[in-house]
């Protein structure tokens, strides 16, 4: 019943939309998205900027709440009423739509040359031949710190692992602040803010990730176990009762000024700017030895694709080409500090904290989260297992070696790398 009502509603909206077309001489493009939060940014900044340059094309941003987006979009594809521009989830969800023929290939779109292969990885077929979404935004991992606390204790921003732990020791010895705000209760903090944050430094970013997918490296190899050994050391610097500390607890501990360092994702910037009453700074995951190349997790999060059955493919491609342009990148990234453009042309961020995050792209090599592409398709799910095992390592339930072995065994049970 629910789906019928939904379908008829969708039909009604599509008929109304078509009626709109008949009256206007302009072509109207509809954007499907789950980013309901971005409605104002699209309506006030992005769409006017595009329409001013492209007379004759009108754009409508029509978001669906995030939890309903995937199901609703699927229903609209089936009913043939989906919008012209589709906002793409990263990896398998969009790949599936491409394979079903719902998303058109954008390999030939001129604007695609503005993006690196890593940026396009989330929306490329496994063989790397077809790209089907324009990368819009990514999130970067690193550490946000309380600048006032660092100044008070006379701590310099750490760049190496040794300096990092020396700083933590100093904060702990002083006792005013909890050295690091992270909990293991929600599991994903340990995996996403911990393992995926510092990990690329040890497995050498894309290089290691590619080897893992090809089967040349295993999760039990030193580069993949070492991040767990470092995570284990974090245990002594987390707050009392971190085992039952949830993600919102960690956020509040930091923004209330009770913790000095917060292992972060750049999406926190918007919230932290409004809540924290002290100065904040950020530093990338520390390298092992001074002078080593640094790596950051620059994880693709949002893309834009073309509905293969769009009635206005030419106009839609024009729009997507604009989405791929530095101009779009500039407006979008500055309107949403923390969601960074993936464009190869660097964007000057007005927010200092966001600028700090994005500046790492120039000196560090970016990679995406190791578990997201291909490796989380089977059962047991590598991403979920990584959550559990990362928390286990910090809680002391499993040693780093045992955790790595469990993950590799789980992966081996279904994943056979193509040789």
């Amino acid at each position: 019943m629910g789906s019928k009502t939904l379908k008829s509603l969708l039909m009604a909206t599509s008929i109304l939309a078509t009626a709109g077309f008949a009256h206007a001489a302009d072509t109207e493009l509809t954007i499907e998205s789950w980013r309901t939060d971005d409605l104002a940014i699209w309506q006030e900044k992005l769409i006017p900027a595009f329409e001013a340059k492209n007379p004759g094309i009108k754009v409508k941003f029509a978001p669906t709440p995030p939890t309903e987006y995937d199901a609703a979009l699927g229903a609209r594809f089936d009913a043939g009423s989906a919008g012209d521009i589709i906002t793409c989830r990263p990896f398998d969800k969009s790949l599936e739509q491409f394979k079903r023929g719902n998303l058109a290939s954008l390999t030939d779109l001129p604007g695609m040359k503005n993006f690196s292969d890593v940026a396009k990885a989330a929306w490329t077929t496994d063989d790397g031949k077809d790209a089907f979404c324009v990368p819009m935004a990514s999130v970067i991992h690193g550490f946000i710190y309380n600048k006032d606390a660092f100044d008070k204790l006379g701590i310099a921003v750490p760049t190496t692992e040794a300096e990092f732990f020396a700083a933590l020791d100093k904060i702990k010895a002083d006792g005013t602040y909890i050295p690091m705000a992270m909990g293991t209760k929600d599991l994903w903090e340990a995996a996403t803010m911990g393992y995926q944050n510092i990990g690329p430094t040890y497995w050498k970013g894309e290089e290691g990730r590619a080897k893992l997918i090809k089967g040349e490296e295993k999760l039990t190899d030193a580069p993949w176990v070492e991040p767990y050994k470092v995570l284990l050391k974090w245990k002594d610097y987390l707050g009392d009762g971190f085992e039952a500390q949830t993600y919102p607890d960690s956020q509040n501990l930091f923004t209330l000024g009770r913790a000095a360092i917060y292992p972060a994702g750049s999406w926190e910037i918007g919230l932290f700017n409004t809540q924290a009453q002290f100065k904040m700074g950020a530093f990338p995951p520390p390298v092992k030895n001074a002078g080593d190349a640094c790596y950051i997790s620059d994880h693709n999060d949002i893309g834009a694709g073309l509905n293969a059955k769009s009635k206005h493919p030419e106009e839609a491609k024009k729009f997507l080409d604009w989405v791929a342009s530095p101009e779009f990148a500039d407006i979008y990234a500055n309107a949403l500090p923390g969601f960074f453009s993936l464009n190869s042309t660097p964007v000057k961020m007005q927010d200092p904290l966001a600028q700090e995050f994005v500046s790492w792209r120039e000196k560090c090599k970016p990679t995406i989260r190791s578990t997201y592409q291909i490796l989380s398709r089977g059962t047991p799910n590598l991403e979920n297992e990584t959550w559990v095992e990362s928390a286990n390592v910090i809680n002391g339930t499993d040693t780093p070696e045992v955790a790595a072995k469990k993950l590799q065994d789980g992966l081996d049970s279904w994943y056979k790398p193509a040789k």
Partner: protein
Amino acid sequence: MSTVEQASADRGNDKRPWRWHIAVFLTPALLVYTAVMILPLIETLRLSLFNVKDGQSVFVGFDNFAVLFGDPRWAASFWNALKNNFIFFIIHMVVQNPIGVALAALLSVPKLRFGAFYRTALFLPTLLSFVIVGFIWKLILSPIWGVSPFLLDLVGLKSIFSPWLGKPGSALIAVSLISVWQYVGIPMMLIYAAMLNIPDEVLEAAECDGVTGWSQFWKIKLPLILPSIGIISILTFVGNFNAFDLVYTVQGALAGPDGATDILGTLLYRTFFGFQLQIGDKSMGATIATVMFLIILSGVCLYLFAIQRRMRRYQF
């Protein structure tokens, strides 16, 4: 009595009119029940015998069950969930139900003042949404903002506090006790009602024979409320093996830490609907649902045939 004999005598002789009103009255309930209970149940059982191969749904017999019990990973998570579920159930049986009986016994003391107030207060958590209960207890037990470390500190017992919900050894017990706190009102009310049903004459007769106080409870009241305790046990069993909501709100879908609070309901949820990057597997989900159904069915049958039949009932 005589009308029944009359009716059965009539049946042989002349044709009675078709008693259509029975069908008319039964149909609506039957239709609704079939649509919302029987059909989904049959569909679940059917789905557990199918799996998707090359994009097609094909009949695979008991292959899904073979995977669930044969594959070391599936089997490990299933037995872990079943074991946790049994612990969950046993904690309810040894904590919730005795406390429920004790509270009912206290409430039925005739001289008790503010009885109605206690009854309402103790029953209130049962009426709360599990989302609220889960949230409240997460806050109470929080090592950072929680009131429990503070209260323990006041009485000098801060040392016994630990982040119970986050430790593999204590998380399941903590979640079970939260559930006990929430649902203790149900056995209390049922036993209370059963105790009120005990006729005063019986108790007076007992008093005349010198059976009072505790021995009166053990020798007179308890045997009389045993059938109710049986009903409560079976309700607890069914409720616990279908439980999902509280664990989900307190510990999340992965039922951490390290799967320590994973029960059949959360395992079913993750399998059927998927979680994060994990894509839902309807066939395996249905397989787990079928096994849950069989476990509950066999538990209820065991109770009905082995226990309830032997229970002595007293007529007044």
